[in-house]
């Protein structure tokens, strides 16, 4: 008698547990759905805002003006003649090139964060220069030591950076640092050739990646997905 009661209660307890699990799973599904819907909605809103006529023309005008200023500075640097005739030629040529390719120089730059980026760039420039200097010394040591203790290897790692510009900035910083060369980027996966274990280790710490993410303002936004971390909870349930 007691045993059957025990079994029945155990069964009930299991049933309740199963139900609770089902409910939790459904809740999680709906939560995941909601987050994805919210994300897609936000993306749609962003694209709509981006594509609305007035703002688009404003962005185009701003890009045109900045491109013109940069190109005119480049012209003065090249020309070195400061009479009115040549300056007028420079203005005309810069306007022409800015008209031809104002959408090339600034392809997908977000609005309003240009000054922050510039400040962060100048703040972190000494770190990059120091990194390049120390890597220079290390490669010089490798080249000059009689045994030449090199250990060439190819690293392959997935980056957390998201935009094209930051990928290219990362690739060029890696290539600029002596001892490492970026060979290819395929869908966010970097293929890097490193001269020995030390430079490979320096790269693997991910400090450079963090710096670039900081400069290009990639780490500033956090997705809802990351907070919920749905996949991990799913794994625990199953």
């Amino acid at each position: 008698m007691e045993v059957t009661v025990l079994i029945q209660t155990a069964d009930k307890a299991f049933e309740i547990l199963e139900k609770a699990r089902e409910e939790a799973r459904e809740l999680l599904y709906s939560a995941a759905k909601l987050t994805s819907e919210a994300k897609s909605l936000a993306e749609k809103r962003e694209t709509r805002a981006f594509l609305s006529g007035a703002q688009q023309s404003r962005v185009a005008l701003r890009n045109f003006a900045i491109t013109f200023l940069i190109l005119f500075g480049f012209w003065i640097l090249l020309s070195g003649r400061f009479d009115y005739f040549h300056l007028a030629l420079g203005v005309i040529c810069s306007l022409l090139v800015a008209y031809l390719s104002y959408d090339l120089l600034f392809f997908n730059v977000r609005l309003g964060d240009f000054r922050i980026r510039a400040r962060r760039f100048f703040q972190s420039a000494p770190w990059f220069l120091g990194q390049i200097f120390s890597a220079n010394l290390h490669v010089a040591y490798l080249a000059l030591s009689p045994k030449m203790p090199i250990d060439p290897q190819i690293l392959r790692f997935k980056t957390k950076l998201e935009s094209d510009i930051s990928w290219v900035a990362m690739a060029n910083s890696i290539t600029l640092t002596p001892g490492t060369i970026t060979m290819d980027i395929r869908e966010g996966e970097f293929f890097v050739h490193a001269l020995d274990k030390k430079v490979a280790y320096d790269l693997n710490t991910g400090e450079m990646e963090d710096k670039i993410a900081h400069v290009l303002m990639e780490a500033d936004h956090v997705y809802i997905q990351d907070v919920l971390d749905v996949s991990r909870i799913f794994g625990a349930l199953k």
Partner: protein
Amino acid sequence: MIRLPVICYSFLVARYSNEYQETSNEQPATSNETMTQVTDDIIIRTVARILIPFIQLYALYVIMHGHHSPGGGFQGGVILGASFILYLITHGLEEAKIRMSEVKAGLFSSFGLLIYSGIGLLCLILGSNYLDYGKLSAILRVIPAQARSLGILGVEIGVGIAVMAVMFSIFFDISTGGILPEDEEGGQEGR
């Protein structure tokens, strides 16, 4: 200076002669398709995008300072054409056609040649030799030395435009094998 009309003429002859079209119809462009496809290397694409405005400005600098320093219309035009060719290589045929199509290139090459020969003929009409800019001082209201400087600047600009367009056009024709996708479709519809 003499190279330009020769290149333009030979190019136009090659472009519009029947023989050329017959041979190109027999061999459809399959081997050269990779030249006009979008490259999958993100580094090359992004760096090209950032560099192209500066290449174009440098080309214009070479054209505009041709009468002071090394360079001139031909060299600057080649650099300008190279910037468009770089865009075509990195961004593919479809996007490049928005910026510079074959029709536009043809118009620009004729327009540049018109500027060049127009200035020459203007000198001839004013009573001196062909491309003798001294007489242009009557129109420009400056001393003959300055008129020579301005006249040769105008000629450089014309040469630059023509060379840019012809360079781009030559590359365009080589890379597509002379047949554009819409040409093929149109031809099939016509038949």
